[in-house]
């Protein structure tokens, strides 16, 4: 340990010997770390599991009611459409098999604040069932979600998110307050704590990294308020839709359907239920494609939805290669620096430093450069991610957490090692006698 501390001291002393060169090397590693850490962070956030504790029991429901002759995705003909029609979603919501279940979609309304100082504004609203809050473990700051009775009636209750609560009520407990949406007053029954599932797995269509909706309303207001989807709507039939009733009865697909199935038995029972439903529908002339009802857990669904763009993966690889190039560029500089110190190493070898000790001393010096570069790189990463957040208006969405800081430091150690192993190996193999100038 004493020798290690001594070698560390020597490393810092060596860096101070030529501060400009040392600073250049630190900056080179720092840039590599900044780019790679930012890319790894983006990839990590994009590809992370948004609900690890339940991702294996939450299932996205897919029924294949697409064109009889063409699969929904010609590249992956085994896949079914990601969304359901209103009539199918509401029909399978009758099942009592799942622990929790919700059909849901994103609508858009005009909200009229009570405060005369605030102007009416358009807001995205998630139409969903009461189970939505339970199955996705949505955190509440005040109050709760509504109950099943409120689903059925439906009752004029809503849940708002913390940002909306801040905007409308200054962040106070607004449970019990009312809010006019369209031409109707709704009572606020719950206020969410800050909640930002990343990606937005319950509806990754559109912007999978966007914010959740600011208001949540019972699904059964869909026909009452004649709500249309403001998200993706897909269809293949030539039906002409003239009114909301026609929209609801059409084969257009705009509803996401989620269920929680806690066991294999429960999952099989629900699969059987779906199959039976579709077979029944086939008799009515619907579902012309082969039976293909799918239950995808969260991570499989995100993978099939290709939530992580290919460009993000390419960017990750390129950024890591950039770091390697930065490290390789340092090899030559370090080699020159170390070899210029050969006479000193000769003296140290004569005085008792072993080859391995000289090697470790120099690798340590490279690791110090790596770690200093890592610190600089992480600081630059924070700036870069803040910049991206501002450019994309995503708030604090992209940020370095402890895992990423650890990953950044690990990368800096690896970069230091890549840069330092060869020069250190060369200097420790320098014959000491050659540089001692014995007569």
């Amino acid at each position: 340990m004493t020798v290690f501390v001594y070698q560390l001291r020597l490393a810092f002393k060596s860096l101070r010997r030529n501060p400009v060169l040392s600073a250049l090397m630190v900056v080179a590693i720092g840039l590599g770390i900044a780019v790679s850490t930012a890319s790894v962070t983006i990839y990590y956030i994009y590809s992370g599991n948004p609900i690890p504790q339940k991702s294996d029991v939450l299932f996205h429901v897919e029924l294949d009611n697409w064109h009889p002759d063409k699969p929904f995705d010609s590249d992956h003909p085994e896949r079914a459409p990601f969304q359901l029609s209103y009539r199918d979603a509401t029909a399978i919501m009758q099942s009592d098999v799942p622990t929790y279940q919700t059909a849901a979609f994103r609508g858009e309304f005009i909200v009229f604040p009570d405060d005369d100082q605030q102007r009416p504004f358009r807001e995205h609203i998630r139409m969903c069932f009461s189970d939505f809050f339970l199955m996705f473990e949505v955190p509440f700051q005040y109050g709760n979600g509504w109950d099943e009775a409120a689903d059925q009636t439906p009752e004029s209750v809503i849940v708002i998110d913390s940002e909306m609560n801040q905007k409308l009520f200054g962040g106070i407990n607004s449970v019990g307050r009312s809010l006019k949406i369209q031409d109707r007053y709704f009572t606020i029954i719950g206020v969410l704590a800050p909640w930002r599932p990343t990606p937005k797995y319950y509806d990754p269509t559109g912007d999978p990294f966007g914010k959740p909706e600011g208001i949540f309303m019972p699904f059964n207001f869909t026909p009452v308020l004649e709500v249309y989807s403001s998200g993706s709507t897909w269809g293949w039939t030539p039906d002409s839709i003239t009114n909301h009733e026609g929209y609801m009865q059409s084969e257009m697909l705009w509803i996401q359907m989620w269920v929680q199935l806690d066991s294999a038995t429960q999952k099989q029972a629900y699969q059987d239920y779906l199959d039976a439903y579709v077979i029944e529908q086939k008799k009515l002339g619907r579902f012309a494609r082969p039976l293909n009802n799918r239950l995808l857990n969260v991570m499989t669904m995100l993978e099939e939805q290709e939530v992580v763009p290919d460009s993000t993966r390419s960017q990750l690889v390129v950024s890591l290669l950039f770091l390697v190039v930065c490290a390789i560029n340092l090899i030559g500089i370090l080699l020159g620096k170390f070899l210029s110190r050969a006479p000193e190493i000769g003296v140290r070898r004569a005085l008792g430093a072993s080859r391995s000790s000289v090697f470790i001393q120099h690798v340590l010096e490279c690791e110090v450069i790596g770690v200093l570069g890592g610190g600089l790189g992480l600081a630059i990463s924070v700036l870069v991610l803040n910049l991206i957040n501002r450019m994309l208006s995503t708030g604090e969405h992209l940020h370095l957490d402890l895992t990423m800081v650890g990953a950044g430091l690990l990368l800096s150690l690896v970069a230091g090692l890549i840069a330092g192993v060869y020069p250190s190996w060369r200097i420790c193999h320098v014959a000491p006698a050659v540089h001692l100038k014995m007569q």
Partner: protein
Amino acid sequence: MIKMQEIRKIYRTEHVETHALDSFDLEVKAGEFISIMGPSGSGKTTLLNLIGLLDSFDNGSYVLDGEDVTKLSDRQMSHIRNLKIGFIFQTFNLIPDLNVFDNIDVPLRYRGMPARERRTSIEEALSTVGLVSRMKHLPTQLSGGQQQRVAVARAIVGRPKLILADEPTGNLDTAMANDIMDLLEKVNESGTTLVMVTHDPDLARRASRQIHLLDGSLIDLKTQDSHVPLINAVPAAFANADC
């Protein structure tokens, strides 16, 4: 202290083989003061490197302080250098960005000695060479003689049994050279074996025994008093040479 037998050292390049030492024998007793003389290229450097375990040889055996060091690993040789050998160089070879204290500290650091013991040893060594007041000076702030005194302090600080001095006065004026020689004699009188390379016959005569090298072979080896050869490694061609 030193027992070398049948040592052969050959330097090889692509086209040429140079026999730096050939069938070389040497025995040095503990506490002796040996001077080595010889023209440039005679093998003095090679001999000091081999004695100091800084280079390997092609053939022969070498016992240092009772331990066969013929085939040791790098780590083992480094350990022996650190514990048993002190080096003094013509060009001082102090590390320029370490102050006097830290320069003398180097061998003790590789020994893993606790800080308090190191400080005591360094202060003793500095006291021996008379430079306690210059402890915090950098080498560039010292005269040549003072730098060589620091080098002597660094060589003796670990209390080695053997000191190898390579032209220790080569870069010094006469007065400073005598100072350094007085210092080395004092170290030798305390029981440390001293092997010194020099070109100066006057300084060489201060040793208890002189060795003369020519073309990698021992051509004369006499005690100062008896002039009787101690080692039977004298090539016939030089048997009667008187250097």
